[in-house]
């Protein structure tokens, strides 16, 4: 089966990908007055999952209640549609470029199970930080950076500082 061992196509040149990203971001501002984002929708999905388990808990915790309390539906928000689009767009591109495959990306020195545990942990730290900073790399750094928001620029440099500061200590996760 040639499809099975088809090599994934090479990825785009980083500057070309960036230029396309910039045009998509501009289109988002021009059509919707706002930029891109991901973490807001993830938070909304989390709130709606919590509401399935216990609506009263969502009503009680102020931070959740503002998006999903009472008769508000956490998923009834444009960011959720943007999220669905991001997911399906990524899926389509992966499919067309031969990258649609179950696998675990990891550094050579750790096992897949270790990698999955660290992915979950890193995700949790990221999710906490993204809510703390009121937005993620897309919503704050990319969108806020393009409109010259001072807070977004300060935030962006801090993401890089945080990453570089810890990189040496967790090098076993990623390097040879």
């Amino acid at each position, binding site marked *: 089966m040639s499809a099975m061992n088809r090599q994934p196509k090479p990825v785009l040149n980083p500057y070309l990908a960036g230029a396309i990203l910039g045009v998509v971001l501009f289109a988002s501002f021009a059509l919707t007055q706002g930029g891109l*984002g991901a973490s807001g929708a993830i938070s909304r999905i989390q709130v709606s999952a919590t509401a399935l388990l216990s609506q009263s808990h969502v009503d009680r915790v102020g*931070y959740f209640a503002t998006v999903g309390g009472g008769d508000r539906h956490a998923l009834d928000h444009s960011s959720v549609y943007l999220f669905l689009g991001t997911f399906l767009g*990524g899926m389509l591109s992966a499919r067309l470029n031969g990258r649609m495959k179950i696998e675990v*990306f990891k550094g050579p020195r750790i096992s897949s199970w270790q990698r999955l545990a660290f992915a979950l942990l890193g995700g949790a730290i*990221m*999710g906490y930080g993204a809510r703390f900073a*009121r937005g993620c790399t897309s919503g704050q750094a990319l969108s806020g950076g393009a409109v010259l928001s*001072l807070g977004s620029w300060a935030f962006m440099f801090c993401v890089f500082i945080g990453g570089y500061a810890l990189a040496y200590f967790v090098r076993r996760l990623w390097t040879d």
Partner: protein
Amino acid sequence: MLPLDINAELGRAGGNAVFFLIGAAFGATLELAGFGDSRRLAAQFYLKDMTVLKTMFTGIVVACLLLFLSSALGLLDFSQIAVNQTFLWPGIVGGLIMGIGFIVGGYCPGTSVVSAASLKLDGLLFLVGTGLGAGLFGETVSSFSEFWNSSFTDRLLVSDWLGWSIGATVFAVTLMALGMFYAAEKTEEFFRSGTFSWKIARPVYLAGAGALFAVAAAVWIIGQPDPLRRWELLQGRYAALLASRAVFIDPLEYLKTANDTGIKLLTLDLRAETEFTVFHLAGSERRTLDELLDSRVAAPLAQLPAQGVVVLVADDEAVAVAAWQRLKVQGVSNLYILEGGLSQWHARFAGRTLHGKPFDLSRPPASVLELFPKDAFTPKIKLATKKRSGGLCS
């Protein structure tokens, strides 16, 4: 004139479809850039592969140039674009936490969506973790909500902070990005091959850098339109509000609003200083038309909370209208003019008494309203619903 308000143009369903399509383009671009692979993302922090920095900053600079070039050319009204609110210290702390999450987990939220969508299990686990972390934040934020809501400015641009024009700031940001790209190329070269040269190896990179430089220079040279030019561009959108007198409020409605504790009222008096000294409404501030052109004066008015109302007072209606135009194009949302200025104010209230006693004409109490029939005025003030805030992150 951009931006469109897609939900108003197409309705909720059509608007959501557009959000979905933008998302699809975003997801496909991240995937095409190779950002579904945590190894490529993490490599940024080990200096061997600077893809993240190159793609991210190219995206920021291209979008930034497109936005401010269209604004400079009068094609886009930047005051209607959502700018992320600045919560400086929470943003700094959150950014540091995210940097740690990035290097431990290998993704950021957007890239993990794309990674999970292409069946990468580490991306899927990261995405699940992001949801859990967001939940944990919601459970704990009440214990430090004071810090989390501190150091806030609604719409603070890098240019405001530097005290530069937007054009100069855009130019500087572009130059900085080009410098970073050059440094990234040289860092990769050094860490991959151990050699180093000053040369730019690919002519197409030089051409691309030249194009960005030229557009940034053009944005700076053309400059952003001042409020007077913006009114020329935008009067199609707002002139009807003046013509239909929908923004002229009766003195009685002013009185009602001033006594409404649920409304934050700001009154600007545009008359000459001598007249202002003789009489002015309690709490009003004197401003000249020229001062309203200054973004440092206008910006705080555009950043009032949703229940903020600004009322302009002048005896010459042409002055009030000019002030309204200047502030409207700078994004002031609940903006009204006191009908007939202070002459009509005096005509309404002079000689009236409360229980036989005169009252302070500069701050009549709410009970004065009872002296008038309920239909003595047509209410005009409609509070705009909460302005767009930090885009899609909330």
